[in-house]
């Protein structure tokens, strides 16, 4: 069906364009961007009224955990995709730490098949760097690439062996795949459960020093400089890491980085009261780190916002802090938190949409990230000011592990369109 999105403010960093346009979608592609009032829907064409709203290239989350296969009690590809489109994401890239892990073409194909059947958001699998995520032998990256992976990562497990990281960067570069690194030196992080500092001392919890992340970022940048390839730093969380990436970019290295909304929104203080929904890896850091991550996003050191959506069952969070699982869900709260960033910092909507759509598309070489006529009609319509309260009943994710339950958020996707099909409209639930 043909679709018009009328009277919206089109924000497309790829063109770039930030102006009123009527968007015409025909046969799953963007057919035209018309000046205000020039869009003339014909009888039988569907119209979305977007007055006062943003119309942007579909948001892309390049770091999610969909948990299928193996951990379907936490999330499935279906529930994860429902959460994605409800949060305004038309595409997600899912990490390999499933069970079995995505370290073979067979698992990659399984994920893609499930995603096709679900037919909501586009799902791009990320393959494991090492067989079984064991950090020993390279996984069959070429085979997984043929099956459809868009990057490799042992996310969740740091790559301790420097030689393995080196070979991964070299080998993956043959297929144009970035290596996404979870930067953590386990010999420094040890069995820490939160950021090391005044708060860990006060709460009597074991700390992970910032040096555990920064030492690994520094190592991987040194390897990258020597061997080439494309390194992407996942969930960057410390001021020191941001500065290392900034300097590496200035030297022209093929380095990109992402930040999670919780790392530019919350500090370690959120752990107070032993809040297990404030427990993640890397941990929430200090106010200084939050500032640095924000600055990194503003000045382009950090290329994109990615949620690290990490669903966990209630029982895995309803326990002693040190036993609780790491991570929080993020797909349905990323947009309002990112919009908050815009409200509190000198940032433009164009930069924000670049960080949430155009840049991740570019890093992973995905279609999307643009509304240029002829491109795929993956579109998100956003009401940037709409207030809403996050209740369990609002969540499409199977898990509810977020510190934001009960909070009033501002800004929400009102329609999510994948290949010209409306897969989410506010008020109608996941299935139009």
């Amino acid at each position, binding site marked *: 069906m043909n679709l018009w999105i009328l009277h919206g403010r089109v924000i497309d960093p790829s063109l770039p364009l930030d102006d009123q346009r009527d968007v015409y979608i025909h046969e799953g592609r963007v057919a035209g961007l018309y000046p205000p009032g020039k869009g003339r829907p014909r009888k039988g064409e569907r119209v979305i009224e977007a007055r006062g709203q943003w119309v942007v290239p579909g948001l892309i989350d390049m770091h999610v955990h969909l948990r299928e296969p193996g951990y379907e009690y936490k999330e499935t590809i279906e529930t994860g995709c429902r959460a994605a489109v409800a949060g305004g994401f038309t595409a997600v890239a899912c990490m390999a730490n499933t069970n079995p892990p995505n370290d073979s073409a067979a698992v990659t194909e399984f994920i893609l098949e499930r995603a096709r059947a679900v037919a909501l958001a586009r799902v791009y699998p990320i393959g494991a760097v090492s067989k079984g995520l064991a950090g020993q032998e390279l996984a069959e990256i070429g085979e997984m690439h043929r099956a459809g992976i868009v990057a490799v990562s042992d996310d969740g497990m740091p790559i301790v062996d420097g030689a393995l990281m080196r070979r991964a960067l070299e080998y993956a570069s043959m297929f144009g795949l970035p290596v996404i690194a979870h930067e953590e030196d386990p010999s420094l992080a040890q069995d820490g459960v939160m950021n090391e500092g005044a708060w860990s001392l*006060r709460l*009597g919890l074991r700390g992970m020093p910032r040096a555990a992340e920064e030492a690994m970022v520094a190592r991987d940048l040194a390897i990258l400089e020597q061997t080439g390839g494309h390194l992407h730093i996942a969930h960057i969380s410390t001021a020191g890491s941001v500065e290392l990436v900034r300097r590496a970019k200035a030297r022209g290295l093929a380095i990109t980085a992402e930040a999670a909304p919780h790392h530019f929104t919350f500090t370690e203080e959120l752990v107070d009261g032993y809040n297990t929904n404030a427990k993640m890896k890397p941990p929430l850091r200090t106010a200084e780190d939050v500032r640095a991550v924000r600055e990194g996003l503003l000045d382009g050191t950090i290329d994109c916002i990615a949620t690290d959506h990490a669903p966990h069952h209630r029982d895995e969070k*309803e326990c002693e802090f*040190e036993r609780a699982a790491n991570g929080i869900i993020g797909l349905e709260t990323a947009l309002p938190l990112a919009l908050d960033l815009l409200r509190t910092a000198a940032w433009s909507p164009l930069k924000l949409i670049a960080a949430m759509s155009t840049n991740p598309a570019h890093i992973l070489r995905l279609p999307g990230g643009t509304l240029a006529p002829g491109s795929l009609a993956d579109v998100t319509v956003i009401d940037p000011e709409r207030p809403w309260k996050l209740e369990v009943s609002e969540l499409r994710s199977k898990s509810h592990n977020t510190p934001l339950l009960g909070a009033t958020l501002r800004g929400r996707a009102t329609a999510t369109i994948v290949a010209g099909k409306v897969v989410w409209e506010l008020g109608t639930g996941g299935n139009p």
Partner: protein
Amino acid sequence: MAFAQRHLLGLEGMSREELLYFLDTATSFQEISSRDIKKVPALRGKTVVGMFFEPSTRTRVSFEIAAKRMSADFVSLSGASSSTAKGETLLDTARNLAAMQPDVLVVRHPAAGAAHFLAQRVGCSVVNAGDGCHEHPTQALLDLLTIREHKQRIEGLTVVIVGDILHSRVARSNLHGLRTLGARVRLAGPRTLLPREFALWADTTTDLFEAVSDADVVLVLRLQRERQARNYLPSLDEYARHFCLTEAHLERAKADVLVLHPGPLNRGVEISSSVADGPHSVILDQVRNGVAVRMAVLYLLAGAAQRDTAENTRPAAALHVAQRRSVL
């Protein structure tokens, strides 16, 4: 004053008035233990359940004697014999015990925050008898009581805490309690066990002679022998050379300095025998006062819980957090 708290989870955030109320109540109970018949009916019909998920002799026995001298019924389970060993979660174990309607749960657990976690989820009062490296409030109260008993005050005293500050719940609870009551606190220990951030709350030094100069009180912490395995220390001998409290140190302190230790002692490691058994040592007074403090804690909480159901049911967790924020 009316005691409004339902739980005793830590001394952080507790007001001066509340601390003094605990200490005054404990002081008034000290005499009971020296009677011929060591029992009062104050908590008759109340049930106290001890959940000890870490080895504990002294603290458990102290709570049990305290409960019994107040005429409460006391039962306890320990980690090894409990159903946690069969895979039951802490929360399920606590909920099952709570379903038997005790008035107070006394919880010792290796995880920091375990008592806070349960306090938010069970209907009865919770006393933290040590949660990981976080707090051990009844130990600090008995230390405060012992200091006050000998010095008649706490305000203005210089109190040195020596040893493994990083891992010590005794140090944390004392730090908060002493500061609230107006003492000057100095922390001393090897840099590996005394991270620099502690300077936010107290003076810190790695020189024990410097630490004890003109001190009114020295609280020596027990050194866990397993710290050596993780390279916090090269050897116990080397630790002793720098941080074992000896008579030579006490010469630098005030003439009437008190020496406290929460026990069990590692003689010759953190404290020399001549100091532990010497005239400045009040270690056995601490143990004696432990009973009075725990009688007071059980009495005030079982009483407070009663008032709570009758009058208002302020959520304990919210109260706790609100109070913590006020001291940030």
